């Protein structure tokens, strides 16, 4: 598989490429299962028991249980799938965005209202502050 990828120097970005997709398939399919209201009820009743139905790695399982939003991406999660877990928790995209970037929901919301995260310093890992 292609290893040398031009996008690997974009800071703070987990590209959902073939490698990532293979790594995260089961994790993302667990997240997908939460589209179904019956599954949401089962997960609400007993998260650990529900997760037994999905062959996740111990690290992925832990990241789900602790809501480690950045860890979920690093373990193969795709944001559109992992956000289903946030929907389950009634969390906003601003909450999750803040959790992944180390600020509170309000700080993240305020950053967006003032124009979003700056371009300068965020295009190449080599220019990260």
């Amino acid at each position, binding site marked *: 598989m292609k290893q040398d990828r*031009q*996008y690997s120097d*974009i*800071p*703070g*970005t*987990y*590209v*959902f*490429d*073939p490698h*990532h*997709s293979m790594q995260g*398939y089961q994790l*993302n*399919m667990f*997240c*997908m299962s*939460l*589209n*179904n*209201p019956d599954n*949401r009820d089962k997960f609400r009743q007993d998260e650990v028991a529900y997760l037994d139905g999905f062959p996740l790695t111990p690290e992925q399982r832990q990241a789900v249980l602790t809501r480690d939003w*950045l860890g979920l*991406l690093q373990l193969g999660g*795709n*944001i*559109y*799938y992992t*956000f*289903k877990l946030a*929907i*389950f928790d009634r969390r906003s*995209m*601003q909450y*999750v*965005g803040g959790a*992944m*970037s*180390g600020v509170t929901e309000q700080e*993240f919301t305020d*950053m*967006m*209202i003032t*124009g*979003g*995260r700056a*371009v300068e310093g*965020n*295009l*190449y890992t080599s220019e990260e502050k």
Partner: protein
Amino acid sequence: MANLFAGVGTSHVPGIGAAVDHEKTQLPYWKTLFDGYGPAREWMEREQPDVVIIVYNDHASAFSLELIPTFAMGVAAEFQPADEGYGPRQVPVVEGHPELAWHICESLIMDEFDMTIANKMPVDHGLTVPLSIMCGQPEAWPCKVIPLAVNVIQYPQPRGSRCFALGKAIRAAVESFDEDLKVAVWGTGGMSHQLQGERAGFVNEHFDTAFLNDLTANKERLINIGHTEYMREAGSEGAELVMWLIMLGALDKDAKEVYRHYHVPASNTAAGLIILENPG
């Protein structure tokens, strides 16, 4: 014959749909965005297209990682709003146009675009939010809809040049349909945004403005933007903008901009809208 007369490019942020559904559009956070949608709704009421082909992406609703079609066209008579985890949006059922959709699929495949054909495809915010933006909250949507779902979640997404070429082929297909129909194409998604990672919240107004300008001023540049440039300059989810290029490909070379609106933020996204019309 059917006539493809116009294109619309618009973001499809779920929060915009939620603001409509929960009557928040006049709150300070949303007011500027929705005020800018007013002229687009007036345009929609005035023009009354019979059919709109909505190019959007499915967000783990109808499709999942089990099956990842690059281009899937819905040929059903109706499409139900999907449950994305909140319960389905309380919006009208989306009515399809099976005869035209099948005609387009047949034409595209004969033209060497190997489409996936979907008879059952619940539609998520990617498709229903643009309808809310353009039509508000009617009892029934005012037009038939042909959904065209594009994979932009799993890398690699289709290239911009391929999307543009698909748009051209859609134009030819529509205009060989033997019924007087007024047809528009909407390209949805974008504009710049990044939902994931430590760089979440990345927005690039300069990139977006240039993109809106070049829909009429320099199509060649837009068609040749590559995956890495989208992700770096427009955020990891900014690559959704390739879907606007399908709309662009379906228009005349000298299509004219008749309206645009741009606002940051809508949730974690830069929201853009543009209306382009073929001359005459």
